[in-house]
């Protein structure tokens, strides 16, 4: 009897999958790591892994469309003479003119203003257009200090001292030469066309004791009027939050690894920092232990996409959230309308992340005047306002179902987790059990 070896299909390695193999070949061909925009693309435990319980016999709900569910948030009530009040707890995260076109910045300002929320400058300073179109503007104080000046500090509504960013805790930035127009170069005091590095550390302070003095200096310069935020990446949220509070912050902004960047090494984005979900509870715990929860406000960002995400972040203890990537999508980033052009760039709508190259077909992450013209800032601002409104309504819908007349009344007790990982990170029970990993009771 002859023996026939039965057919076995070719087997690809799970470790060396197609993407990994392509990356090895790309590295071998080019000799340089991959730089890209946006946040992590890997799957991490997230708000999708949490569910609200809703009302029941022991918890009664509020009537949709009738009974009020307040969404206002006050930021900066600890020390600032002029805290800011927002109509919705969804703010726009810091993104620079330079990384984004002037029209895109204007659209963000317009959308935020219609919605009664704040927008934020980025590395590169404040533009007149941005100030003019943003009713409430947060001015970032970054290590590079590009465009930093006392006049803009005084015309800002709040100041955000940036220590870290979720996409790259411990990393600086790089705006490549092709995005350096005359105006961008002038704002940053550098020659046109060269790569502009954004430092990873502040030039004139290191550590929490120095930060305390730096914050005091900024308050003195602005006569103690402005709320001062401290933005941290998702690295050591318990300690960083405690140290920011100790240093005198009015507000802590906490950005998880799903938070975007204009340009960073892919290896950094994918391998440094913690998911947003893992960051919130340690930060809230630090605030509670210091007796500062709700006194120092916590803004959470990194992967917020819907009103459900907003409600979940708030239920875990945040006072507000910030959106960056989602806001760019709302104004037109990665829109299938430009599919043909995305294909020419070797990508597809939804996957385009070469924001640093300045060739964005949607005219958002570019300084090319022809491309930038494609974005109508008025219409784009309207889209952002619509999106913010939908998210706010969604969060209210959930809050009412949980019987809350303010979004801030949502609690961890309203949540369960779908996975053991999310249960451990969010410190809410695995659905159908009373078990939280690490909390005993098993």
């Amino acid at each position: 009897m002859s023996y026939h070896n039965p057919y076995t299909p070719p087997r690809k390695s799970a470790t060396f999958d197609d993407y990994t193999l392509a990356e090895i070949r790309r590295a071998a061909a080019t000799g340089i790591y991959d730089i890209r925009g946006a946040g992590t693309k890997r799957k991490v435990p997230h708000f999708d892994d949490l569910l609200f319980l809703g009302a029941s016999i022991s918890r009664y709900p509020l009537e949709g469309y009738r009974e009020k569910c307040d969404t206002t948030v006050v930021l900066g009530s600890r020390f600032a003479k002029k805290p800011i009040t927002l109509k919705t707890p969804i703010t726009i995260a810091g993104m620079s003119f330079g990384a984004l076109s002037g029209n895109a910045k204007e659209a963000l300002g317009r959308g935020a203003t219609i919605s009664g929320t704040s927008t934020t400058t980025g590395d590169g300073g404040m533009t007149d257009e941005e100030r003019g179109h943003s009713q409430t503007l947060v001015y970032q104080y970054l290590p590079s200090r590009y465009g930093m000046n006392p006049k803009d500090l005084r015309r800002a509504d709040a100041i955000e001292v940036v220590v870290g960013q979720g996409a790259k805790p411990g990393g600086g930035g790089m705006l490549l030469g092709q995005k350096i127009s005359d105006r961008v170069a002038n704002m940053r005091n550098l020659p046109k066309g060269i790569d502009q590095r954004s430092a990873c550390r502040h030039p004139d302070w290191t550590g929490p004791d120095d930060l305390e003095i730096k914050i005091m200096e900024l308050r003195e310069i602005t006569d103690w009027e402005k709320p001062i935020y401290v933005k941290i990446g998702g690295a050591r949220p318990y300690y960083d939050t405690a140290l920011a509070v100790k240093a005198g912050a009015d507000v802590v902004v906490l950005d998880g690894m799903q938070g975007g960047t204009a340009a960073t090494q892919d290896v950094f984005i994918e391998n440094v920092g913690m998911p947003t979900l893992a960051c919130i509870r340690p930060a809230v715990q630090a605030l509670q232990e210091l007796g500062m929860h709700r006194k120092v406000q916590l803004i959470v960002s990194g992967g917020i996409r819907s009103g459900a995400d907003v409600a979940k972040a708030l239920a875990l203890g945040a006072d507000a959230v910030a959106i960056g990537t989602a806001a760019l999508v709302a104004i037109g980033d990665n829109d299938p309308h430009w599919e043909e052009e995305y294909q020419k760039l070797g990508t597809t709508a939804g996957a385009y992340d070469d924001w640093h190259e300045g060739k964005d077909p949607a005219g958002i992450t570019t300084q090319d005047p022809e491309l930038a013209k494609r974005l109508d800032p008025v219409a784009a601002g309207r889209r952002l306002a619509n999106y913010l409104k939908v998210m706010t309504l969604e969060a209210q819908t959930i809050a009412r179902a949980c019987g809350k007349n303010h979004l801030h009344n949502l609690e961890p007790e309203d949540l369960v987790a779908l996975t053991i990982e999310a249960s451990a990170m969010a410190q809410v029970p695995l659905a159908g059990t009373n078990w939280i990993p690490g909390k005993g009771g098993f």
Partner: protein
Amino acid sequence: MPIFDLSNTPLRELNSALHALSKGANDTEFEVINPRGSHAVAVGIDSPVTVSVRGSVGYYCAGMNDGGRVTVHGSAGPGVAENMMSGTVVIEGDASQYAGATGRGGLLVIKGNAASRCGISMKGIDIVVHGSIGHMSAFMGQSGHLVVLGDAGDALGDSLYEAKLFVRGEVKSLGSDCIEKEMRREHLEKLAELLERAGVTDVRPEEFKRYGSARKLYNFNIDNADAY
């Protein structure tokens, strides 16, 4: 002349008085006594006032100065005249780290020595140090001039952009992409002007060497990876 005694007057009163001056005010000379190492003395000045500080100050004295003339009759802590826009700051003694950090304009004169990272990330400020400066000075300096009558520490001008550095004494070592450059006539003229404005009379521009960026790291090149 208003006198603020920081041993019994809150710092807030000094800084708010400096910010509250109306345009064209006559009484623009301030004196600060007993600073005793206070931080953020005379920060955020936005008019052409004159401030004399009798003693030593802590962090960030004259931070973001825009048009004032501040003289510290003592030494200054870290970050003196950080992000200065315009005006003049004179330190009669020594200055700690990060003197003139990210300064965009104006003149900072340090009559003693300056510690490490003097002129870090400078963006247009002119700094004249009568003594010596510490390591990593003018790191990532973008524009402006740093003049040192004494010596410079390790890694001078590391990752330098377009700031111009003039050192009269020894340079312990140069940082990445910083090289000695030809001293041309326009540099000698600029140096003479800076020395004069800084009150230096017994030193000639020809005694200095000029350092600047080799501009090899301006656009990322993998073959330069060893330099980063």
